[in-house]
């Protein structure tokens, strides 16, 4: 039982105070470090009103939003199954497609998203998008993906300009990835891949991994 002469009482309060302080500082830090910034550099194809995503066929309708994390293995499967059809839509202009490269899996996702954005500035976003999935490491943040790796990957699809390499090296669009993450959070995106047609989520149970149902869902949304 406690008594007023207890020498531990000061220690006890000190410990509680310290723990409370760490919790408070940590929570505030988490909050601030994930806020999007209006001064972040964004790729030319990005539109803030489209959740800072990379926009293809800006004036077409309907609108397809695709949320991926380049380290997410299911996203890779999704790309293998439906990426070709999306590329076809992009090429034919049958719909507006907005890619949102998310980065919640960690550091290498940020590297990849930055490189994809750099490629977008050179008009090669979709090529980089595919190349990233094709060269996904088996494990998250394995150390495979580095700045040099991204440059080599870019080179392999014909991105050899000094501007691209500088963009990768400088991490020009690293801050932009926070804007994408923040906007995705506000759009209630709770996993990847997430696909929305005209703002409406596809059915996760059936429409993601079946190319026929995926096409049908897009057709229902107005992709002719």
């Amino acid at each position, binding site marked *: 039982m406690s008594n007023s002469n207890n020498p531990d009482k000061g220690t*006890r309060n000190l410990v509680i105070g310290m723990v409370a302080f760490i919790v408070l500082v*940590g*929570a505030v830090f988490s*909050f601030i470090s994930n806020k999007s910034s209006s001064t972040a550099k964004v790729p030319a194809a990005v539109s803030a009103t489209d959740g800072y995503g990379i926009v293809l066929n800006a004036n077409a309708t309907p609108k397809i939003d695709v949320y991926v994390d380049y380290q997410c293995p*299911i996203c890779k499967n999704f790309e293998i199954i439906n990426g070709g059809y999306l590329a076809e839509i992009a090429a034919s202009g049958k719909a507006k497609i907005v890619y949102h490269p998310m980065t*919640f899996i960690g550091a290498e996702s940020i590297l990849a998203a930055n490189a994809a954005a750099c490629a977008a500035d050179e008009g090669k976003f979709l090529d980089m998008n595919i190349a990233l999935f094709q060269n996904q490491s088996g494990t998250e943040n394995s150390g495979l993906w580095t700045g040099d790796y991204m440059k080599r990957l870019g080179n392999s699809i014909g991105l050899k300009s000094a501007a691209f390499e500088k963009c990768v090296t400088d991490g020009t669009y690293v801050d932009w990835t926070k804007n994408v993450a923040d906007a995705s*959070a506000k759009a209630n995106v*709770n996993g990847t891949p997430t696909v929305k047609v005209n703002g409406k989520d596809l059915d*996760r149970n059936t429409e993601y991994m079946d190319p026929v149902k995926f096409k049908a869902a897009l057709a229902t949304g107005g992709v002719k």
Partner: protein
Amino acid sequence: MLSKFYKVQPWLTLLSRLVLGGVLLAAGALKVGNPQKSAMAVRAYEVLPINIANFLGYVLPWMEVGVGTLLIIGVGVKISAAIGGFTMFVFIIAISQAWARGLSIDCGCFGGGGAVEPGETKYLSEILRDIGLTMLGIYLYRFPKGRFGLDK
């Protein structure tokens, strides 16, 4: 019988503190480094308004770290156990409603979280684990004094 309980009670309290505190500390520590994912995990339950879910996703891991630390070193055990146990109780409700509504999510208890493939959910084991942890919280609230605690 009762006297026997009073003999083991301080040790049971210590054990409960280490288990509940350890789980909370580990769960929090695995999440503090990735607030984006943590916020996503909370949103995936589709219970709270998005803003509040995101806020909770940032704050909850740090709270878990704090409460877990206090339980392990044995400071403010009664209130920490109440918070920890109540948190677990809320998790049970959150996971149960996700299960009942047919959502496919990972509980996000130890990092991870968010939507998963249907068939990859583990609701029952998650709920059973959290029931056990809630009971430890209740026990600690009732018997907060035990071995090797800073509380006197």
